[in-house]
């Protein structure tokens, strides 16, 4: 029997506000800052202190919720989620439970099968926990260190419906969400810093069935790679079990990256009872409709809308459009370039951005904002290419130098004398000269070895240092060779 997976994702995204969710401590880069330097009595859970909601975090959450086309609750409620762990200073996490900030949204995803909307179940605010580092000394002694810098950092939980049916869709959804968060300026998307974390609910069922199978929850997936591999592993494992007639256990799983397999953390019976109850220290979170409208009006053009527009306005392929809008800065670079040079074909500019610039960024590690060649500089270069003053090869070489030195195309081309010889008169003389200097090859050509035309082409190119306009040169060479042929027959 063939099986089909049904997957829902819970995405935890840190909101990169200046201060924490419930206190004035700064939000610091957890991978850089000295441990426990961004901590105060509130986020350390000292006796008698109280949380105060960070308004900016609510604003960021609303941006995301609105971009996901959610219904916003004008009244939502914080609750306490109770459990003991050394990284949880209060012994409970303040989170939203029964009454989340937003519900019923959608996010379009693009896969090889085309575009489809994934339904969003809910979007709610909570606080992050601290970080534990487990240490084993050379003597074999083990202990754990607690860093509370991350404790209390605003966290947005975005929960999808079980609307994903393949690893490809899981990836597309996760990527689309990351792109969206970055567009909205609420999260850096730096996966290696743990600012976005995934949990996947995975079940499988016989293909064509409309019932849901028993699901497992895979926790703590901190990279796209881990997400994809863990989901793929689970689909495979569950399908195998079902085909052998064995049941799936409802349980919570961890992902063992080194051994590329999931492992059981908790069975259904061992599931935590979090004893949620409304947080008495915080009044209901009330968001005024006028504020919601203001935030909605301030949203940037969102990735899927921009992608559609790029396809329609600039005639780009869906793939190229996706690649360009994947990062807001890239899309903006591209569009600035297009607007700076209305007579250049937008697809030509797209090719250069996605080809040469992406290759350079990959190699150098620079972001598009760091490039020494901005969009205006790029199109200046492309105009030389378009007019035929330089050829493709020269253009690539010039761009490389622009990216290395920050020089402009005109200066590089002029100082190196790279301007292409397009002048038909000049090329006529050069072609005539090459043919005159190589009588034996001309004879072979006339006897039928026509491939020698390429050799003559190369000889002329070499004579001008590669700067001949190839179209003009080819036309002139063909004309002179045809003339010789005609003379021979007559």
């Amino acid at each position: 029997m063939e099986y089909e997976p049904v997957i829902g994702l819970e995405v935890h995204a840190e909101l990169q506000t200046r201060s924490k969710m419930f206190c004035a401590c700064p939000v610091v880069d957890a991978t850089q800052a000295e441990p426990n330097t961004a901590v105060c009595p509130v986020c350390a859970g000292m006796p008698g202190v109280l949380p105060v909601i960070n308004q900016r975090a609510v604003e960021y959450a609303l941006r995301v919720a609105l971009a996901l086309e959610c219904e916003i609750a004008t009244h939502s409620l914080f609750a306490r989620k109770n459990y003991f762990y050394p990284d949880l200073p209060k012994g409970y996490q303040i989170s939203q439970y029964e009454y989340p900030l937003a519900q019923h949204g959608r996010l379009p995803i693009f896969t090889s099968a085309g575009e489809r909307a994934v339904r969003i179940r809910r979007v709610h605010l909570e606080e992050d926990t601290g970080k534990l580092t487990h240490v084993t000394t050379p003597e074999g002694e083990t202990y754990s260190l607690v860093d509370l810098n991350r404790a209390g950092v605003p966290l947005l939980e975005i929960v999808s419906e079980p609307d994903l049916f393949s690893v490809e869709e899981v990836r597309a959804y996760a990527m689309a969400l990351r792109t969206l968060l970055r567009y909205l300026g609420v999260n850096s998307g730096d996966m290696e810093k743990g600012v976005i974390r995934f949990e996947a609910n995975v079940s499988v069922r016989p293909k064509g069935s409309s019932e849901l199978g028993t699901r497992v929850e895979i926790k703590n997936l901190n990279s796209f790679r881990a997400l994809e591999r863990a989901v793929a592993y689970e689909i495979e494992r569950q399908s195998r079990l079902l085909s052998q007639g064995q049941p799936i256990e409802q349980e919570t799983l961890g992902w063992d990256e080194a051994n590329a397999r999931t492992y059981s953390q908790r069975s259904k019976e061992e599931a935590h009872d979090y004893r949620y109850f409304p947080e008495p220290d915080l009044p209901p979170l009330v968001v005024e409709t006028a504020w919601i409208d203001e935030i909605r009006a301030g949203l940037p053009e969102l990735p899927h809308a921009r992608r559609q527009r790029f396809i329609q306005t600039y005639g780009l392929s869906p793939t190229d459009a996706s690649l360009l809008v994947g990062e807001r800065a890239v899309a903006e670079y591209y569009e600035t370039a297009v607007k700076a040079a209305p007579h250049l074909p937008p697809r030509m500019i797209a090719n250069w951005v996605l080809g040469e610039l992406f290759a350079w960024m990959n190699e150098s590690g620079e972001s598009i904002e760091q490039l020494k060649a901005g969009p205006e500089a790029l199109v200046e270069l492309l105009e030389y290419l378009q007019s035929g003053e330089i050829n493709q090869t020269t253009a690539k070489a010039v761009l490389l130098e622009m990216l290395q030195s920050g020089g402009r195309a005109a200066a590089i081309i002029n100082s190196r004398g790279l301007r292409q010889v397009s002048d038909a008169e000049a090329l006529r003389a050069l072609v005539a000269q090459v043919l005159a200097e190589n009588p034996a090859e001309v004879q072979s050509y006339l006897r039928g070895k026509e491939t020698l035309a390429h050799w003559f082409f190369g000889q002329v190119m070499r004579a001008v240092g590669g700067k001949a306009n190839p179209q003009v040169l080819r036309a002139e060479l063909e004309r002179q060779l045809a003339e010789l042929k005609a003379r021979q027959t007559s």
Partner: protein
Amino acid sequence: MTALTDLTVHQALEALAQGQVSSLDLTRACLAQIERLEPVLHAFITLTPERALAQAEAADARRAAARHHPDEPLPPLLGLPIAVKDILALEGVRCTCGSRILETFVPPYTATAVQRLLDAGVVVVGKTNTDEFAMGSSTENSAYGPTRNPWDTERVPGGSSGGSAAAVAARMVPAALGTDTGGSVRQPASFCGVSGIKPTYGRVSRYGLVAYGSSLDTAGAFARNVADVALLFHLMAGHDPLDSTTLDVPVPPIELPAEPDLRGLRVGVPREYFIGGLQPEVEQAVRQAIAVLEALGASVHEVSLPHTEYALPVYYLIAPAEASANLARYDGVRYGLRVESDALWEMFRRTRGQGFGAEVKRRIMLGTYALSAGYYEAYYGQAQKVRTLIKRDFEVAFEQVDVIAAPVAPTTAFRLGEHTEDPLAMYLEDVFTLPTNLAGVPGLAFPVGLDGRGLPIGMQLMGPHFREEVLFRVAHAYQQVTDWHLRKPPLL
């Protein structure tokens, strides 16, 4: 001349303003009284004499300097010695909450209610005894030993703010701060013959008040008359950006008329508060006090608060539920007691097992149970619904009357050990004080008599949300024509 320790807050401030006494004199007198009576009463967990004397000296210096600048107003309580319940944080002074688990905990912050009084110029002489985490009605649940009642040292001072009430009654300080989650200011005020306010929930910041039942906890004050209490209350009250549950409503100055006149005032007497189990002398004293209010021009009306009998079960679900979460932070990881073990969970267990007393453990378990999956709706959820009905009772009653007058506790102070074996009997001590906490309305307790054993009897006035000034006006009128608040414990 009266002894310095007999001065009320208003008298002490007047004497300071007139230059008749210095803050140092007052503070030394308080410390001397504490030294004399503390071995008998044990009202304090931590004394801060050096800090207090330094504050007093600074206050005197400031007052002296101000003589050259008569236009600049001085802080209103400059140089006044007070005591603070050891549930409210004071930066740099350990805050035990009456518990072993916080024996060594020194907060790096000060509770807003305390800070506002510090800003007003008070001198803090020490942190007073309390039932562990404010859970109790006798101050016997303190890990540091019980406080005794100055009126009869074989009896309890009430609780949980028993240390503060006893300290004020014994003239160790003219005023003290307490907290009231289910009666913890009013009942000890009643047992010790002093006046005490439980403000409207949301009126005084809870920041730095170590949480027990977060939706019920309030910070209040004790003094020997209601005019003094009103002064402290007024300075403590008001919106605090650090406590989102404080309301941004104005705190009007409390005008206490010179002439006692209660004409036009409607006093409600709730029939559910005069029930079997009420000590006859308590009922008699309270009814007499109501007659005094009537004689001052008030009209008296019977009212009904029909859900009163449910207040006790509702309270003992909601407060422990919140406590079970509030006390989860005491895990030995970051501060306070840690009992070491090789394994994490064993460290948690030992720390909490040894750090908490029996009553605290009882309430944590009660609350954990009430919140558990499968029981939440039947217990916590149901309790919240009934809480709404109790709140509604008060709203309906306050459509008919301006204040409600009732006994504070069913009995006068009981003997040490009398209820310690029977938690339920202890819980019943709070039947008359719990409803105000559940409804969030203010309550003011003050003495209205002595029973046959010479033990103080207290009455409480309850009012609508944020109408504390009415309670103060009525009680002040009463104290202008009676002298129960001037009686001294025989110990003195």
